[in-house]
């Protein structure tokens, strides 16, 4: 099955694909960028997402998808170079600066981003957001973690289980 507007990005205009968010917004993006998603890669390789078709993403809303694609577009050139082994230090520093800035976001946005990165299997983004959450809870006590992330109050059974665990390994409360 041939793509309606093919081209591998080497010659002429880059091939574009259309992604459709859960709230029905259409995003047109270079196939190379969308292919950072393992979930989308096969569909795109098969020629999907071109023309008027579009690939529906029922689990990702438009605000999140827009953010995800911002990441993909930025990282696509380096990914195309096979992880950019010959990238200059300047390029790498620029990507790092972008990444740091990228996850400097509201906690609810971060949550949506984590779920989307996971659904779409975008490896670099999964790693980036996991690192961000780890940094957010590093050095915090269990109570501080609960507060920071707004956990719901534990049920009595949960509380009992946690109490037993704390008794067993009490070092968190030295």
């Amino acid at each position, binding site marked *: 099955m041939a793509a309606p507007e093919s081209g591998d990005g080497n010659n002429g205009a880059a091939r574009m694909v259309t992604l459709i968010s859960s*709230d029905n*917004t259409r995003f047109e993006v*270079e196939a190379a960028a969308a292919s950072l998603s393992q979930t989308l890669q096969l569909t795109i390789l098969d020629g999907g997402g071109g023309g008027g078709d579009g690939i529906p993403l029922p689990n990702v809303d*438009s605000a999140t998808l827009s953010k995800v694609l911002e990441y993909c577009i930025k990282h696509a050139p380096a990914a195309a170079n096979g992880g950019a082994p010959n990238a200059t230090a300047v390029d790498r520093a620029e990507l790092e600066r972008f990444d740091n800035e990228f996850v400097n976001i509201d906690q609810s946005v971060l949550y949506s981003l984590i779920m989307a990165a996971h659904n779409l299997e975008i490896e670099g983004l999964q790693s980036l957001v*996991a690192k961000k959450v780890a940094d957010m809870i590093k*050095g915090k006590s269990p109570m501080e973690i609960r507060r920071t992330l707004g956990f719901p109050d*534990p049920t009595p059974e949960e509380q009992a289980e946690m109490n037993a665990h704390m008794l067993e390994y009490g070092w968190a409360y030295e």
Partner: protein
Amino acid sequence: MMQSAGSSAHRKRTKSTMENKQCPSPAVERDWAALPRDILFSIFLKLGPRETMLGAEFACTAWRRVAVEEPSLWRSIGFHSIDEVIQRWVNAHTETAMAFVALERSSGQCEAFRGYLDDEELADLVQRGPSLKTLDISQFTNNEGTDKLMEALMKLPLLEDLQIYFRHALKGRADEMLRSIGHACPNLKRLVLIYARAMELECDEDECSNNLIDGEIR
């Protein structure tokens, strides 16, 4: 409607009017305590064993389960940074106790271990970590010579990287010990032996301390 997420990464995109049409309840949508297991797994991997044990695993039961039920979270124990130690100091005894709980959770998958050990703890370690490739005994309390050490090393056939700081002066000859280690660990690629400062040490200290040897040792 069509939004372009094309060539310009920084272009401000126009807000879609449909964007807010279906906004699910945030309380249900964003329950961090109920993150899918593999996402939590990736977060705990970034946290590392020590941080996980000192905070995250006590945050809720779902998080705790991931911590205790995923052996591959515990493949590298004791390799936290000095900053992490300073930030949350626990006494050396507790540190060792935590390391051994982590080791237990690794279900034999542990590949790298760093910590303070004596003969007995070392014997326990090799029992529970038969797949160790990296072993860094930051302080080895070698009260009874090196026989037990050699015995332990024989049980780590995959060992590639070994570093030991001996707290007590060694009896016997260093070259013989090197030979014994070479026999015990045929896959060794890097060996660092740091000797305690001791007046009765017979060998030349320059030769032995920080002894870095690359390649096969025979």
